[in-house]
């Protein structure tokens, strides 16, 4: 390590080392700052900006009546994934009901992997804010939406493009802070 070119070599090594170390600390700092974000576990949806998946699902209230994705085009709608087995869905239910009552946008329910009797009973007990409720009993169509549990909420625009997804219960802050501004944007754009 005493060869003549050693000081220059070690200076390069020094600079590289310092840069790597500081970059590393910065990354760790970023990690710490973001570690308590509520949605750090949520998966971002790859469907954003893409057409909503095509589906044909029966209505919860009328098992014979099928609804297809095409029929829902024309105006935006919020799709809310829920189940009677889901405790958090009960927590977000009043928030969703209040929002649905403002009639700002269609709120459509997506009942995931539920027995119809349990789902109907749940709606009777807690109220039905949905314009209509789709029933996905085996969860097959949910895979196409990238759904992996409940509650999850999507916003689909008039042309059927997915614009927004939220994993976990929605609260007033999320509705006022994210959903409503997005709806404003969509309406202004049209």
């Amino acid at each position, binding site marked *: *390590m005493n060869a003549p070119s050693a*000081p220059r070599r070690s200076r390069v090594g020094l600079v590289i080392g310092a840069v790597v*170390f500081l970059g590393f*600390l910065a990354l760790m700092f970023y990690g710490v700052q*973001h570690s*308590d974000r509520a949605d750090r*576990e949520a*998966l971002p949806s790859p469907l954003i900006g893409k057409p909503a998946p095509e589906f044909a699902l029966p209505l919860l209230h009328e098992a014979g009546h099928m609804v297809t994705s095409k029929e829902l085009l024309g105006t935006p709608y919020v799709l809310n994934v829920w189940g009677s087995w889901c405790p958090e869905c009960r927590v977000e239910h009043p928030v969703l009901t209040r929002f649905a009552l403002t009639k700002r946008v269609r709120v459509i329910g997506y009942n995931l992997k539920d027995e119809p009797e349990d789902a109907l009973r749940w709606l009777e007990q807690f109220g039905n804010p949905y314009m209509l409720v789709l029933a996905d009993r085996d969860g097959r169509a949910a895979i196409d939406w990238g759904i992996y549990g409940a509650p999850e909420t999507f916003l689909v625009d008039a042309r059927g493009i997915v614009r927004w997804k939220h994993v976990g219960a929605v609260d007033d802050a999320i509705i006022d802070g994210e959903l409503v501004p997005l709806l404003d944007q969509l309406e202004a754009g049209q």
Partner: protein
Amino acid sequence: MLPEIGQVALVLALLVSLLQATLPLAGAQRGRTSWMSVARPAAFAQLLLVLCAFLVLTVSFVMQDFSVRYVAENSNSLLPVIYRYTAVWGSHEGSLLLWALILAGWTGAVAEFSRKLPDEVVARVLGVMGLVSVGFLSFLIFTSNPFARLLPAVAEGRDLNPLLQDPGMIIHPPMLYLGYVGFVVPFAFAVAALIDGRMDARWLRWTRPWTNVAWGFLTLGIAIGSWWAYYELGWGGWWFWDPVENASFMPWLVGAALLHSQAVTEKRGSFRGWTVLLAIAAFSLSLLGTFLVRSGVLTSVHAFAADPARGLFILIFLAIVVGGSLLLYALRAPRFEEGAPFAASSRETLLLANNLLLVSACGMVLLGTLYPLLADALDLGKISVGPPYFGFLFVLLMTPLVLLLPFGPLTRWQREQPSKPLAMLAPWAILALVLGAVAYFTAPQGPLKTAAGVAGSAWALLGTARFVWTRFKGNGRRFTPEMLGMTLAHTGIAVFLVGALLVEAQNTQRELPLAPGQTVEVGKYAFRFEGVEETQGPNYVSDLGHVQVLRDGKPVTLLHPEKRAYASGGQVMTEAGIHSGVFGDVYVALGEPLGAADDPDRANGAWAVRVHIKPFVRWIWLGAALMALGGFVTALDRRFRAKPVQAATTEQRA
């Protein structure tokens, strides 16, 4: 009353460690013996105080004092007595206290066994260890107080995580910490050497056994963790490259490199700078691991409600310790004497290559572990990096290492004719290849991995045996504990290779629906499912399965896989039924009951049952145990106990 005593003990320990950190270091700089002599008594005092705090917490657990918040969160009136002792380290605050205790323990050990070293050395080493203690004790007291009270006290605690109510978890954390924390000793020596501007053979002769012992404990800790995951988690895996596993594996890799580098520096005087850098790196990685698992930075770490305040504290501590020591290295390392010259064909070069491969592997693991976070920070999306990445690249990097392994001990220092070790090893290389080819053609499945495992392991084993034979056939040659340690560790690698590669290549698993009385054949075994009955444990209700295992029609054993529902949190644990043998395990786990959801008799009907046959799986942990044993045996070598007088006369090589 008692928890407050524990609290006071911690605060006093912090004050004592402040003294231990500041006075001796200043004293060594100024040559003030009175200040330097504070080091040892302070170290012992700190140990006593932290031990006192630890005992207080233990007593609180055993007496089930639910007015202490940490006890209330990690214990329960139904918790069996033995687990009340281990619940002390069941969660963040308590495990951190264990960390601090082990740190104090190593500090005390260094204080006690360093009487033959010069005063400034001891003062500096203990001073640096004191600085680390200050950091950890502060972290404990200010952000993670285990003695915080919960007033009014709750009547019932939340319970220790059922996963941790297990013998494996009794021993895994202490072993792991002994290793992890143990790297503070070579680190302190390295920093002391940097401050002093010298590193001579005496110091290395002193540090080497400690480093080997710490590394040995870390090896055991990781192995026990792997074994525990295998039998406890129910899906038969033994390593998943999970971020938390990686956090313990990185210091292990660098520690292995450090051991080898220390050997070179001690015997030949070379690589002083590298040894110091590796010592800093090993301990830095220990600290990094502690940071990663407690700060909530990695998305895999979900257990503790991520507390950015805690994370920030450790991060700042990490930045100071690592940044400070690296800065010191940059400024002072060039002052080290250069070692003796050596030819391209020499043991020095081989060990350099060895360390390069180990360090690159560590870098790879670090990169893969942090990449999802980096991608998130740079807005590149949420990606996952898992076993296909780590396993693939790790094998790629370790293959050259295994190939070079037998050459090291047979190649002389400084200069060696390449033809000599090649001639000694060539026949064994051929034999290894032949064995690999035989394995390739006779393997029932996974021929390539099987062949690689057999050939690689045979090569490592035979090459190491060749070395042993060389030593014994020479006249009057000694076979030192250091050589024995190396032999054991390298043999351990061979054994591990068999286990790891063969279990992957040869394992069979099936998941089947079975009704009571049904038999199914997997591999050479037949499994008769005899149904499930409900039983009760001390703090859980269990669905206990009975599976009769037969081979060639004769009963081998009766296995009892279980599904336990714990009373306190309702968590469901899968306990596998395992029949272990030298040449493989039979592993059975219960899936879910298959009856209709509203059938009250569901548990007595058909179940989904998972059956695994895992050949040679125990060899994985046997290999690791041999490696750890090698580390411990090396530490016993007499060369490390040379008296100071003798050391002075053999100084010329240093």
